[in-house]
């Protein structure tokens, strides 16, 4: 008898739960980064959750975000993740592709199954995704050059530090940087070094370049790798940066870099809107799925240009996790 009561009451609870869960229709969006081991994606994830929360409050739908991906950057593994979420019949997918071609097939399969797919951060232009939300890396590179010239003047030797040679986004940034520098005949890019996305190797090559080119005036760090290391690890660069003998512009706007900018080691930052990767992607998916809006092939996510003048606003944005308020102008 006791057991019977237990089973019946459990059944009733279960029915009640499923009934309440069914009331508002739930929409599930999968938000898939390149890798789970890269911290910049976590901010995007928070943005995605934030927008889902806002939209759920607004009603009439409930929104759920599926934050899934391969642990490390791996196109094959990522394709499997996409297949998984298609099998789970999600209502929309936003993905940052590890490889433009390797993901075409699974993206098209998802679209054929009736699931709208959009790309963010890294595109797969030949797939049937309905739009791409991304930064214009080429323009970012040009901005970096402008920031550097503003700081160091129109004369002198500069060097570039890249991650893995051949990575499309990094190459685009450097292409933009070179284009902008070309307008100044007295500025010469003397060397380009690679650190293979490794902090240790980054620190090492920066110091080597500081030795090989004692007259160096400017640096363009195409990513922030060596800046993750603590002060004291790059004595030559630090000394020159503090003495305003060498000026450095870097990509990204993580808190470490903002701190260095405030302390005077860096003179400018060009950052992607990580928060928007999630926040805007979910917003676009919502507008597409619920409202049936049409979108252009490419949506520029814009960039944050940070200098000494507006660095405090950016630091505040990180503290409050509020990236919606526009930054004050950099100059």
């Amino acid at each position: 008898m006791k057991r019977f009561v237990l089973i019946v009451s459990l059944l009733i609870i279960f029915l009640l739960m499923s009934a309440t869960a069914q009331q508002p229709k739930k929409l599930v969006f999968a938000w898939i980064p390149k890798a789970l081991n890269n911290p910049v994606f976590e901010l995007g994830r928070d943005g995605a959750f934030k927008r889902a929360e806002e939209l759920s409050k607004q009603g009439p739908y409930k929104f759920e975000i599926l934050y899934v991906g391969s642990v490390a950057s791996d196109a094959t593994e990522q394709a499997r993740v996409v297949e998984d979420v298609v099998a789970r019949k999600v209502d929309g997918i936003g993905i940052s592709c590890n490889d433009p071609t390797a993901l075409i097939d699974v993206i098209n399969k998802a679209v054929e199954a009736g699931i709208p797919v959009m790309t963010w951060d890294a595109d797969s232009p030949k797939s049937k995704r309905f739009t791409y939300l991304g930064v214009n890396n080429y323009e970012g590179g040009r901005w970096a050059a402008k920031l550097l010239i503003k700081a160091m003047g129109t004369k002198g030797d500069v060097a570039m530090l890249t991650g893995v040679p051949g990575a499309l986004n990094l190459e685009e940034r450097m292409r933009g940087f070179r284009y902008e520098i070309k307008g100044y005949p007295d500025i010469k890019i003397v060397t380009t070094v690679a650190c293979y996305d490794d902090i240790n190797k980054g620190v090492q090559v920066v110091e080597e370049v500081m030795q090989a080119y004692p007259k160096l005036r400017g640096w363009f760090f195409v990513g922030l790798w060596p800046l993750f290391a603590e002060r004291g690890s790059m004595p030559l660069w630090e000394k020159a940066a503090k003495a305003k003998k060498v000026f450095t512009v870097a990509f990204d706007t993580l808190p470490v870099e903002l701190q260095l900018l405030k302390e005077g080691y860096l003179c400018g930052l060009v950052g992607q809107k990580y928060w928007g990767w999630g926040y805007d992607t979910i917003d676009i998916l919502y507008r597409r799925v619920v409202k049936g809006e049409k979108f252009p092939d490419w949506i520029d996510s814009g960039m944050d240009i940070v200098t000494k003048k507006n660095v405090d606003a950016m630091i505040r944005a990180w503290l409050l996790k509020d990236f919606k308020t526009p930054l004050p102008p950099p100059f």
Partner: protein
Amino acid sequence: MRNRVSRRPLTQVFKFQRIQEIGILLILFILSLFLSIATPTFLTSTNIFNILRAFSWIAISAFGISMVIITGGIDLSVGSVMALSGLITAMMLRANLGDFLSILGGLLIGAFVGFINGLLVSKANLPPFVATLGTMSIARGFCYGLTGGWPVRELPRSFMFWGQYDIPILGIGIPLPVVVMIILGIVVSLFLNRTVWGYKIYAVGGNEQAARLSGINTGRIKLLVYTLCGLLTAVGGLLMTARLGVAAPTAASGYELDIIASAVIGGTSLTGGEGTILGVLIGAAIMQVLRTGMVLLGFPAYWQPSAIGAIIILAIMFDQYRKKKMGLLR
């Protein structure tokens, strides 16, 4: 070693050529000479210590892996162990457990992963390649899982001292990691050449069957070398973390290849039974001198991997040729 040294009569003048390491030492010397002439910066004390510091953690781990390779094994987990040990220490430091405990924790985790490697190889009889491939992935997964992908920063100055301090000797500053490397090199070298344990390590690699028949507990020897390799790798990982002041979960990715290459360039035979610590040290130095040299020369970054690969192959070919001529090779 063995009887092949005396196979060929040599004049006394060329006696030094019979030393195993002289070939690669010559290569290192030629490389350095070329770079000293070609660049104004190579032969400065700043640069030399910069190079020495840069390969110190690779070399320390390579001391460990050379022991493993001498027994005929391999350890692919070294890169991950470097990252994990540095990370554990960094996390313990951030939890205010103090320098001593944190450093001990990092070293023990390295030794522990090494011990597991040893167990898998000697007790579970897994091929070393497979066993350490597995632990490489497990250790890396822990790095990601424990941090959620974020690097651990803001370590205390007292810890960074180990990686950033230069000991002033005769007016020049010798980086602490370099001193640690030299001390450990001497200790491991003595261990391999002057103790029964060392003799047994060579014996296991030379002919495992014969070693077992002569009463050597080969399983225990393997357990020992893998554990020591883990421990030494952890020392390297900690020094690197102290130098950078940050422990990234992605740190030291792919370093296993650099570490293995250092040992092999240094004359450690992948088939086991052969190798010296001095050779490993020179091997690690060659790798770093090549890398730094390329940057100092302004060699295009995109072509550097090819150039480094080609020079390594040429260097090994030269060394093999020399050994054959001297009758040092079977």
